């Protein structure tokens, strides 16, 4: 069995609570890869050769089994053409940040629902991409298309080399997202959406229904039902939770669980697929929803949750993560390994655990290279 298939089976078995020959490892390292390679963010984010080098160097150095980030986020060379870039790069701190923003107002749901493509093309996106209405915008579009095609060539190159050169599987065959997170991250923002849930739930429902249609979510669900898991992928499906962070359990049920998450998990149970959730903020508040998911179907990668407490609430759900920025970035190798051993012994002695990091690893100080390497070597050798 080649390394690719070996990794796929290893992670699936761990998700299925089977004892494995070693502990699988997952990289939640993002722009840290760029800094670890010695590049400035403003260099690598605009130079695909440098980004390719940063990503592949990280892969060769640390040798994780699968990855959340493969260099393709933030195509600034495309968005800059229309002045659509809201990120602020701070090369001195080795960071880039984005502020909470609204691209649509709370009284625009009716207009959105009437024709989502027209609304987004003519109103929403030009608020962000300011030059879409410039006199030379069509010339800018020609430039942007060339940049977009270079960007997709870069992401395709990485995707191909991950599989063929490095034997690294894709996380899942199909990424599925409900529209609530799109409103949270890109349309109404944190504050706007929080207000809408309380003061304009009918408008929000209209908007969600319109975006469900726009994104073709019924067709995506059909694909999820009918298509087998791809040969290079670990999980059948994956999603990310961001908007849940402003929801009560009742709101989570209304906007995410009932219309989408529960259905995807039902499909997994019926079709023998596995599913993974990348959950930012914390998911413990919503643990009840996942209690009846059959063991072996679901893996959750939490961020702020205490994994040991989460395991008590969800003994049926495989967990991924656990290594904190404190342990990786501030502690000694020995202290980092103490945590790694505790994680494996208490969460993964009979499968059910994948070693990872508790946040999107971004800053230089989030981890010391020697700590990353030590934990990787530990996972390779340790038999709980």
């Amino acid at each position, binding site marked *: 069995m080649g390394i690719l298939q070996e990794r796929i089976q290893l992670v699936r078995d761990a998700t299925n609570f089977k004892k494995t020959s070693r502990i699988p490892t997952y990289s939640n390292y993002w722009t840290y890869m760029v800094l670890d390679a010695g590049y400035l963010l403003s260099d690598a984010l605009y130079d695909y050769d440098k980004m390719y080098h940063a990503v592949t160097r990280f892969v060769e150095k640390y040798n994780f089994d699968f990855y959340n980030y493969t260099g393709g986020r*933030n195509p600034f060379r*495309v968005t800059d053409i*229309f002045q*659509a870039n809201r990120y602020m790069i701070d090369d001195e701190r080795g960071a880039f940040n984005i502020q909470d923003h609204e691209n649509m107002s709370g009284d625009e749901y009716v207009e959105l629902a009437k024709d989502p493509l027209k609304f987004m093309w*003519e109103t929403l996106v030009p608020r962000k991409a300011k030059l879409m*209405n410039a006199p030379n915008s*069509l010339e800018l579009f020609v430039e*942007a298309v060339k940049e977009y095609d270079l960007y997709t060539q870069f992401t395709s190159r990485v995707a191909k080399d991950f599989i063929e050169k490095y034997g690294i599987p894709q996380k899942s065959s199909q990424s599925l997202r409900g529209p609530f997170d799109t409103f949270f*991250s890109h349309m109404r923002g944190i504050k706007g959406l929080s207000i809408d849930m309380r003061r304009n739930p009918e408008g929000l429902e209209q908007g969600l229904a319109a975006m469900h249609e726009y994104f073709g979510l019924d067709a995506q669900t059909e694909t999820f039902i009918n298509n087998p898991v791809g040969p290079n992928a670990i999980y059948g499906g994956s999603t990310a939770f961001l908007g849940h962070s402003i929801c009560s359990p009742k709101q989570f049920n209304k906007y995410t669980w009932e219309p989408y998450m529960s259905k995807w998990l039902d499909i997994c149970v019926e079709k023998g697929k596995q599913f993974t959730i990348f959950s930012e903020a914390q998911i413990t508040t919503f643990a009840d929803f996942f209690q009846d998911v059959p063991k072996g179907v679901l893996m959750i990668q939490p961020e702020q949750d205490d994994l040991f407490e989460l395991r008590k609430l969800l003994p049926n759900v495989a967990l991924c993560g656990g290594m904190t920025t404190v342990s990786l970035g501030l502690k000694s190798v020995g202290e980092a390994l103490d945590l790694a051993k505790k994680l494996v012994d208490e969460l993964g002695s009979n499968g059910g655990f994948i070693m990872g990091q508790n946040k999107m690893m971004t800053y230089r100080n989030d981890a010391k290279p020697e700590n990353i390497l030590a934990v990787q070597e530990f996972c390779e050798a340790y038999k709980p």
Partner: protein
Amino acid sequence: MPEPTIVLGNYPEGYEAAKELLSHIPEENRDAYLRAFLQILMTQ
């Protein structure tokens, strides 16, 4: 009276003009391409 300039942000005129500029993309894929492009501008 001169014709108003079409800008990318007009719909449907700007959208259709953009489609015409995608000569390297098969016609049946151009709507999907523009939606993906719009998604990049909106989300990144």
